[in-house]
C-alpha cells in the first residue's frame, strides 16, 4: 500500500541538516501503524514527505504503486484531496464554515452532487456521533468534537490512506480515547490504512504496530499482541530504553 525506499531528507541552509537517513518502510492495506520518537527525531518530516507536503531529497515514495512526488503541483493537490485523508493536531477546520460544510468541503471542490454529499456527511456524522452539531460553527464546539469533525472530513472521500499528525495532542484523555476508538473502528470497518505520528503511548497502543525513529533513522518496531495493556507496557518500555520520558513513572507490571 505505502512503500518508502531509501528516503532521505536534507534541509539545505548555512549548515545542512540531515533530518532523515535511508528510511525503508512499508504499510499493508488496512494496517494501522503509529510512528513514535523523541522531539526532533524526524517524525513530522517523515509524515510531511508521505503526505506529499514535502519532497524527499533522495529515495522513493510509492502509494498504491504510484509515486506522487512525480506529479505536478495541481495534480498533486488533487491527489492529496482524493487519495489521502488528513487529521491534524490543531484540527485545521475552517471557522467561516459550519460543521457540515467543513465535512463536505473536499467533495464540493470536486463538484460532487449535493444529494450525495449530504448523504455521505450524514452517514459519517452518525457513525462519529456528531449529527447534533452539524449546523454549528467551529468556535462553538469542543476540541473532541472538532477532531471528530476533522475525521469525518478526512474520511468523506473514502481515502486509501489516512494520515494523522498527533490527533490526540490537543485533547484530554477521555476525548483521546473516544477519538482513537473511532479511528480503530474506521480502520477495521473500512479497511483504510492508517499512519499516525504521536507522542502519546496511550494513543499508540491502539495501533497494530509501532515504529520508533530516532535521529532520523529507524530504531526499532514492535507489534501488538493480543492485549492492548501489554502492548502499552511494551511501548513505555521502549520509550524509556530510547531515553524518552517514559521512565518517569516507572512501570508496575500487572
Amino acid at each position, binding site marked *: 500500500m505505502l512503500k518508502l525506499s531509501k528516503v532521505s531528507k536534507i534541509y539545505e541552509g548555512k549548515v545542512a541538516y540531515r533530518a532523515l537517513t535511508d528510511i525503508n518502510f512499508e504499510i499493508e492495506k488496512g494496517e494501522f501503524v503509529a510512528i513514535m520518537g523523541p522531539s526532533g527525531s524526524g517524525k513530522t518530516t517523515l509524515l510531511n514527505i508521505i503526505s506529499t507536503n514535502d519532497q524527499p531529497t533522495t529515495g522513493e515514495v510509492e502509494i498504491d504503486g504510484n509515486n506522487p512526488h512525480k506529479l505536478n503541483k*495541481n495534480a498533486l493537490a488533487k491527489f492529496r484531496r482524493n487519495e489521502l485523508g488528513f487529521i491534524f493536531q490543531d484540527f485545521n477546520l475552517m471557522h*467561516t*464554515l459550519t460543521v457540515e460544510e467543513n465535512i463536505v468541503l*473536499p467533495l*464540493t*471542490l470536486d*463538484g460532487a452532487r449535493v444529494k450525495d*454529499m449530504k448523504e455521505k456527511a450524514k452517514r459519517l456524522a452518525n457513525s462519529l456521533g456528531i449529527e447534533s452539531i452539524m449546523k454549528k460553527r467551529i468556535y462553538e464546539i469542543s476540541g473532541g468534537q472538532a477532531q471528530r469533525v476533522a475525521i469525518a472530513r478526512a474520511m468523506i472521500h473514502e481515502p486509501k490512506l489516512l494520515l494523522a499528525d498527533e490527533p490526540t495532542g490537543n485533547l484530554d484523555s477521555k476525548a483521546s480515547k473516544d477519538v482513537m476508538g473511532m479511528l480503530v473502528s474506521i480502520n477495521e470497518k473500512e479497511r483504510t490504512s492508517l499512519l499516525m505520528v504521536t507522542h502519546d503511548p496511550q494513543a499508540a497502543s491502539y495501533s497494530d504496530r509501532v515504529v520508533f525513529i530516532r535521529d532520523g533513522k529507524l530504531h526499532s518496531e514492535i507489534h501488538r499482541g493480543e492485549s492492548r495493556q501489554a502492548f502499552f507496557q511494551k511501548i513505555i518500555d521502549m520509550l524509556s530504553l530510547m531515553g524518552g520520558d517514559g521512565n518517569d513513572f516507572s512501570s508496575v507490571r500487572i
Partner: protein
Amino acid sequence: MTFRQFAFNNVLRNKRMYIAYFLSSMFTVMVFFTFAIFAYHPAFSGGEVNDTARFGMGVAGGIIYVFSFFFVLYSMSSFLQSRKKEFGLLMMLGASNKQVRWMVFLENILIGFLATVSGILAGLVFAKAILLIAENVLIISESLYFYFPTMAIIVTFASFMFLFFCISVFVSIILRTNKLVNLIKGDKQSKGEPKASVILSVLAAMLLLVGYGTALYVKGVQVVFALIPVVIVVTLGTYLLFTQLSVYVVRRLKSNKPIFWRKTNMLLFSDLSFRMKDNARTFFMVAIISTVAFSAIGSLYGFQSYLTKGIQEVNPYTFTYSPWGGDSEEVTKKDISDFNAILKEENIDAEMESMELTYFETPEKDRNVMIVRASDYNRFATLIGATELDLKENEAIVVEQSGAILMDGTKASEVLMKSSVLLENGQEIQPSRVIESEVLLEINGYYVVHDQVYDKLGTPVRSEINVAWKAKEGQHDQVLQAGKKLSEQLEYKAFSVDYTLYEINKAYGPILFIGLFIGIVFFVSAGSFLYFRLFTDLEGEKRKFRSIAKIGLTQPELKKVVNRQVAILFFLPIVVALIHGAVALTALSRLFDYNLTVESSIVLGSFAFIQIIYFIVVRFFYVKQVNRSIM
C-alpha cells in the same frame, strides 16, 4: 522596561504590522500638505488671484482636513480590529483597561508624529510636481516656482498633531475591551451578518429606483430642487442596498445548496457572509465617496466643456467684428482699419471677408428674417473650409445651427420651412431643404438664395456689416495677444474666440484644479479603504488557505477564489458609484440641456480604468502573499 518604553517598542519593533496604518496616515498628511503648499504659494498673495479663489481654497482645505479626520479614524479602528487578540493577551497577563488604553494612546501619538513628519517630507519631494501640474491646469501669468513652504509646514504640522491627538484620545476612549474571551477568540468569531429583512431589501430597491427615476425625469431648473431629496433618497438606498439587499442575496445563495455547495463557491460565499458587517460598511463608504468624486469631477469637467465648447462651435472664425447698431459708416471703417492694424502689429497671417447682413420682412409680416446671397455665403464658407452651396435658380435653403440654441422649443428651421421668401414682385419661393452650418451666426436661422433671386428682393428692412477673419493654424500666442488688444480697444464690437476661451479658462482654472484635487483625494482614499479591508483580513485568509492547501487545493482553484473575492470587493461598490455618477451627470446635462455624454464617459471611463489597474496590481500582490504562506 517602563510602560512607555513598552508601548514605543511595540511600534518600533513591529514595523510590518503598523506599516499600513502608518502609510495611510502619512498619505493623508502628504495630501493636505501639498494642498497647503499650493494654497500658501507667494504667487497668490499678489492681486492675481482674487479673494473668492482664496476663500474657495480655504473651504477646500477645510474639506480635506475634515475628511482626513474620518479617514485616519477609520484606518485606526480597522487597525485596532486586527489587534484584538493582542489586547486579549495583554489583559490576560493582568494589564488593566486603563493601561491598554494608555498604550493605544501612546502608540497613536508616536505613529501620528512620525506620519506627520514623514508626510511633510514626502510632500516636499512632490511639491515641485504638484506646482508644475497646477501651473498647467491653472492659467496664471506668474509661474508657480518652487519655494520653501514655511507657512505650509507650520500649518500642516500643527493641524495634524492636533488631529492625531484628538483621534488618540477619542480611540482610547471608545476602545472596547469588555469581554476577554471575545478578544481572545477575536478573529475566529464572526461579527455576524446585519439583520436582513425582506421589507428593507425591497425598500432599498424602491428607494434607488425612485431616486434614479426622479433624477432622470426632472428637467431644467427642477433639477436644482430635486437635488437634495434625490441625494438623501439615493444615499439611504445605497446604505440599505449593502446592509440589507446584499445580505439578503448572499443568504439566499447560501441556503441554495446546489449553488453554495458548488466547487469553490462555498469558500467564496462563506467568507462574504462571515465578514458581512465589515464589508457592508466598507462598500457603503467606498460607494458614496467615489460617487462624490465622480460627480464632482464630472460636473466640473462637463461645465467647463459646456462653457467652452458651445462658444467654439458657433464661432468658427478667429475674429469677428460687428458694429453697434448706431455706428456710422465712418466709425465702422475706422474700426476695421484699426482691427487690421492690430493684426498686422502682431504679425498675424489672416484672411478677411466682409458682407452686409440683410434682413427682410416675412410674407406673414410678423418679423424680419435674414436672407443671404449664395455667393456671399460661399465666400464665408471658403474661409472656414465649410462646404459651399450650389443653388438652382428659384431655390431657397434654410440654414440653422442647433449648437447655438440652448433652450428647447420649436426649432428655428421648422418656423422657416413653413414660411417662404417673398420677392418684390409678390412671388413667393418655398424653401426646399434645411442644412446645418456654422458659416453665419443667427439664432433664428436664415435663408440662402440664388444671387439672381436676391437681386429681386428689394430693399432690406435693416442691414449691418459683418467682418470675419480666419487666421492660419499655429499662431495661437499671437492670436491671444491680438485678442487682448482688440478687446481693450474695440470692446464688445470685436470678438476673438481664442481670447474669450482663454479668459474663461483662466477664471475657471482654480475651481477646476481644486475640484480635481479633492475628487482625486476622495477617490484615492476610497481605494485605500478597500486596501485596508483586504489586508486586515489577510492573516486570517492566509491561515484559511494554508489549511485547505494541506487537504489539497489546486493553484487554479485558489486563484479563482481569491480573484472573485478581490473582484467583488473592488468592483461592487465602484460599479454602484459609477451608476450613481452616470445618473447624476445625466441630471446635470438635463439642467443645462446640454449633451454631456462624451464628458461623462471620459470621466467615468477613466475612473473605471484606474480601478481596473488598481485591481490588477493589488490582486497580484495579494495572490503572491497568499501563495507564499502556502508554500
